[in-house]
């Protein structure tokens, strides 16, 4: 079983510009960002659940965090185009609660940590689990099963 590598992806700053309205802008890099407004707690919850369901691979990371960047680069290097949700500092708590509601975190290390990854609608883990399964070769299999990888 051979793994083919993608062509090098040019380094780009993938953070979107701040927009005061609540937005969900699909863009070629699949970076999505939601700004909270007064009634958006419910919206976030609904959106998160849907996003997890609708995306074969989705990475939730803190805004500007280098660790979620590592996850993203690794997945992109495998030929996967992951959806990346960048969480603002102020939304952090709410998002954690919602994600834990959808199954994030295994309770071993207490609270769920960013970055965290869902594959095929199910919670997968953080950077460590991504690295470990990548080394053993399990990750590619799981990604293919979830339909995130076709090569």
């Amino acid at each position, binding site marked *: 079983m051979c793994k083919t590598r993608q062509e090098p992806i040019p380094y780009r700053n993938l953070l979107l510009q701040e927009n005061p309205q609540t937005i969900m802008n699909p863009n070629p890099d699949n970076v999505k960002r939601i700004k909270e407004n007064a009634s958006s707690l419910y919206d976030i919850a609904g959106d998160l659940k849907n996003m997890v369901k609708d995306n074969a691979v989705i990475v939730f990371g803190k805004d500007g965090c*280098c660790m979620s960047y590592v996850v993203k680069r*690794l997945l992109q290097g495998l030929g996967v185009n992951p959806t990346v949700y960048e969480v603002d500092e102020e939304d952090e708590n709410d998002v954690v609660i919602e994600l834990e509601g959808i199954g994030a975190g295994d309770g071993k290390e207490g609270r769920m940590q960013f970055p965290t990854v869902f594959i095929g609608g199910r919670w997968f883990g953080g950077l460590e689990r991504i690295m470990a399964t990548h*080394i053993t070769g399990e990750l590619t299999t799981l990604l293919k099963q979830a339909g995130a990888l076709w090569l």
Partner: protein
Amino acid sequence: MNSASTQFIPTRRMGLYEPTSQMGMWNDYRENNFMDIPPPVILDVNSRFDNQSEDTSHGTVGPSNKYDQEASKPVDKVLRRLAQNREAARKCRQRKKAYVQQLENSKLRLMQLEQELERVRQQGLYIGGGLDTGQLGYCGTTNPGIAAFEMAYGQWVEQQNKKNADLRDALYSDIRDVELSSFVEDGMKHYFDLFAMKETAARADVFYLMSGMWRTSAEHFLSWIGGFRPSELLKVLMPHLEPLAEQQRLELSNLRQSCQQAEDALSQGLEKLHQFLSDTVAAGQLGEGPYLPQIRAAMDKLDDMVRFVGQADHLRKETLMQISRNLTPRQAARGLLALGEYFQRLRDLSSLWASSRRESA
């Protein structure tokens, strides 16, 4: 042996010396019984001469003997003298060779001791809190976490050498595979212990860990995020694992590629952190007075550095485990031995380098 015949020897024996000084020294020797030549030759010549009971005062006995014997049987004596010269010269060359070899060994030992001394001195400086604040950036502040790490690491290296020696003995003895497996597991666990030590040290001072000050220069030069680069390690190990089955070769080749992909991702993340830190610290007007907000913002990001070291060590651990899963106990033992020897050679290279720099300075 007739001491008079030795007057022919100097040019051959003391090959390194100038002919004029040789003859001068040798003349002194004959006239004043004064030996002014290097120790080994002196000792050897002295011991040889001391064995001859007749050679109590060389200056007087020699010449007269020579003339007497030449009068009676010139040819035989000359031939015998020449033969003995050759023998003496040969023995002298052998002794010189042995002496030089001993010097080389002592030199290597000295280098190792100096290296050890340097490390202990640095550690002592760290604890003492700044005796010589010139070179070391961390002096002036006592960091017990780092001091503890330095000591623990020194012990770790000693244990590592011992384990490697034991592993080598086990590998070349007649032990069963299952016992060899326990050696392999013990060896791998030792590396995992180091990763745990490093994690604690990273929390104490991640810059110290990343600076590689706790390791030798060659090891640091070849390192990647505070330790060995997994894909490079695989490349180093592969030849020592032969013979490999085709399936094993394929698995290891895939593993190497996976490591490279993981390393690239981590490296790029670290690069991003680098740029972020640089931008954060430079933010606002450079040259304005209080710059605390920028520094504070950068400080928050330094926690990510700790995570990077942790992730790199985690990758190393996973790689080592995956390698051993794909190998027979004997192959794994050979691999572990090769690994230990590789790092030891890097440490030796650093010793040699450090000492050659001191000599040429």
